């Protein structure tokens, strides 16, 4: 599904070159659940952003669903991204001005899905995550765990092939975190959803099928669980 070849990322400030990622090679197959770990500054988030096409590498080759991303134009890349990738963030990143219902609905608007169909899809999603009663609340009226549920529901509503999660449990207490992780595991097992998550927590990483350790921008180790 995904293949990174010799991916590097560095910034130049004057004569100073700051390297973030250095010669990363990574292949992820459909149905995998990969956890990326590493200390602060090791480049995990940058790697995830590159995979998610929110950021571009300085060097290297990036293939997604057999398409050479590094050669695509902005528009094509965006279309590919829109159809296939869902994002979940540590800080949830819900739109504060929108209700739960509207937040979940927003991606459908960008996919030009008709009103009736949108209603049905959002209703399904609310049902599935058991947040029907909260649909008219605004994010600020929800707990962190509930907000993250909405964030995940929003990421899943367009049925992406790949779910990217940047420390999804970072702002949650351990009980809420466990629930989210169980949910990810279930998604991966029962629906075959490909998931890549970045995490600090050893325990959360164990939910995945493969753990990759990054250090100073290079892959230090990779092991299957």
């Amino acid at each position, binding site marked *: 599904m995904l293949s990174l070849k010799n991916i590097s990322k560095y910034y130049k400030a004057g004569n100073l070159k700051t390297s973030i990622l250095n010669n990363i090679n990574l292949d992820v197959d459909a149905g995998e659940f990969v956890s990326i770990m590493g200390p602060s500054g090791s480049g995990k988030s940058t790697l995830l*952003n590159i995979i*998610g096409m*929110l*950021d571009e590498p300085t060097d290297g080759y990036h293939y997604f669903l057999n398409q050479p991303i590094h050669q695509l134009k902005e528009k094509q890349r*965006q279309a590919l*991204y*829109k159809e296939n990738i869902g*994002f979940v*963030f540590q*800080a949830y*990143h*819900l*739109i*504060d*001005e*929108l209700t739960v219902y*509207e937040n979940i*609905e*927003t*991606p459908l*608007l*960008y*996919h030009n899905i008709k009103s009736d169909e949108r209603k049905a899809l959002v209703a399904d999603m609310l049902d599935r995550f058991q947040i029907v009663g909260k649909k008219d609340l605004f994010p600020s009226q929800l707990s962190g765990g509930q907000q993250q549920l909405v964030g995940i529901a*929003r990421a899943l509503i*367009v049925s992406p092939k790949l779910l990217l999660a940047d420390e999804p449990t970072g702002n949650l207490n351990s009980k809420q975190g466990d629930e989210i992780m169980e949910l990810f595991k279930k998604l991966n097992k029962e629906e075959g959803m490909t998931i890549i998550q970045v995490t600090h927590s050893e325990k959360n990483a164990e939910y995945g099928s493969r753990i990759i350790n990054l250090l100073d921008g290079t892959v230090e180790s990779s092991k299957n669980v």
Partner: protein
Amino acid sequence: MLKNYFKIAWRNIKRHKAYSAINVAGLAIGVAACLLIFVVVQFELSYEKFQPNYKNIYRIVLQQDLGDGISYSEGTPYPITAALRADFPQVKLAALNTAYNSQFTVPANANNFGADNKKFVEEIGVMFMQPQFFDIFKYKWLSGDASVLNAPNMVVVDRSTAKKYFGDWQSATGRVIKMDNQINLKVAGVIEDVPGNSDLPLKVLVSYATLKTHLHEYNADDSWNTVSSNHQVFMLLPANATVSNLNAQLKVFTKKHYGGNDNDHKVHFLQALSDLHYNTRFGNSLGDHITNKATIRTLSLIAVLIILMASINFINLSTAQSVGRSKEVGIRKVLGSSRAQLIKQSLGETTLIVLFALLIAIAIAKLALPFLKNIASVPDDISLFSIGSLLFLLTTTLVIVLISGIYPALVVSGFRPVLALKNKITAASVGGVPLRRVLVVAQFSISQLLIIGTIVAVRQMNYINSADLGFNKEAILVIPGSTDSVSLQKSAPFKAQLLQTPGVKNVTFTADQPSSQNNWTTNFYFDHNTTDKNYQTSLKFGDADYFKTFGLRFKAGHAYTQSDTTNGVVINETFAQKVGVHDYNSIIGKSVKLGNGQWRPIVGVVEDFKTNTMRDAVRPIVLVQNKKQQGIVAVKLSTSNFAGTVASVQKQWEHTYSDYAYSGYFLDQNIAEFYKQENQLALVYKIFAMIAVFISCLGLYGLVSFMVVQRTKEVGVRKVLGASVSSIVYLFSKEFMLLITISFIIATPIAYYMMNSWLQNFVFRIPLSVGVFVLAIVSSMLVAWLTVGYKAVKAALATPVKSLRSE
């Protein structure tokens, strides 16, 4: 999708109430102001355009050189019409002679004049009119047609005059009315009211043939040498003729008909109808005002500047606010929104706010409309909405949405999602601060321009209103009257009677007050010279008490004595100087001859007083008794029991001159009327300067709030390092002081140029001193300080712990 945008837009407006209020208020006030100016400008530019022959109608006007420079007159001599008809048979032309303040007596019933007559005085709109006028100008006839004006003693009235005189227009035809107590006229036709945007207010049209037997009473004279601005000729340009061609023929025509000296220094030429309302070379002897094109341009410029300021505010605040919304933009991008969709959303929000502001603007304009006549000469029933003004609103909306929507939209949609989500978007990264500085400078330049304009205009008007006119204008009641022989005989007993009235100090019978917009001039001979001077002198007629009543001050000699036959004359300083006498005592006893009159000794020299308006230089003047012209009575009153005395004088006047309608006025108010347009312009400056200052303060407040937020952390760090509150306030304010100084440097030369050329309209004017400019910058600084100060102090007083906690 659209619904979603509007929902978000609405929630955003609600969430950021202060920002939205500033945005909407600034824009609404700006648009309302522009809309009102647009209505005025549109009205002023629409004069006479309803005439189907608009483009081909011309007035025959006169250029003359009477020895003291070239002057222009819209008047023509009475015999010109017949001569023109003979020399230009192919041209359609018509003459009219207007009469001011004519009185019409309307019998209460049928056509029997009696004690219960109604009397009306028509200030303007009364004209002796040739029927051919209606071949050139087109009006709707409710009854009768132009041919009724062929016969003498016929009159045509317009609908509202008919209603005023007879109750309704249908019963007007066939009625008889009396003009100025001497001419009986039969109503033979009724025309529809002339629209307000015309300098030809046709109210009472007396057949021109009637004038022939009453020339003298209406300042006309069957002579080529007398030119009265009341007598005007209009013509329709024939299809095959050009203006330059006709002007050349008119030159030949002038040479042929004018005798003597006039031959060389008078020439007639054509003035287009489209020029009539705007050319200040010619007086406005028919309508109620003319408007300088420069005034219209000034108004339009102010409107453009105001709308520019409001848009600048909008851009400033929108981009500032967009930083706060970078997270939302980041999320939307992650959720799959394209850049185009984000631009659409941002434009949608702008549109919503602009539409909202527009509705408020229309409401404000609607509320302010009744007050519009204080700043412009527009009719009371002027409408806010016309195709023009709606188009204007539409265009304005589009332009504002585009200018103030596109820039923030591009900025916002260009955010990189990764940075946006990490809240790393700052003022610097939206490129805002330098641009914002430029915009603030632009705003303050405009405000200061208007502030300087206001100070200059207000000072000049104060100067005019309080200037020493050379006579005392206070507490003088002026009552226009008739110069018919019956009335003149009543003058002396009436004067004696008035002087018995408690509260009356002095009384004089006169033809003209000291300062007026009238000009009665003649050629003259000085000191028994046999050739006349090559310039003319002005005349004012008054009895011996003229000087006492108006408080004129003698430099030498004294007033002439009361007499029915002419004896001495009094001159002013300018007259003496122009004939080359500087020791005023030595001119006493010398003689002048006015026109073809008698030699008369000079008995006194008065200090120069303002003979006309402050726009004009003082003219050489001869004051002389001329009982036949002295129909106006001026009464100097004591200020105690003022109202009572005025009422008593009026009662006595009405009793003495029972055939006439009373139309007394106070001299000081009448003089103030001379400057109606200037006073209006001063008021325009005042109002719009206030609006401009208000809008730029909103902008400044928005900008400083934004900078305070941006620099919270910096302030925190500085405070931890030991900065004092005052040094931090200084940190915020020094930039604005600099920006205001820059805008001052930009505004000053433009304002100087603008106001200097405005002041050139006045012969008597204030100097454009440094003080004006100092006042402008000091007041701008002060206002900016008041605006910025609160926010700056608040930021400086905040505890640093709070601002530094976020990292």
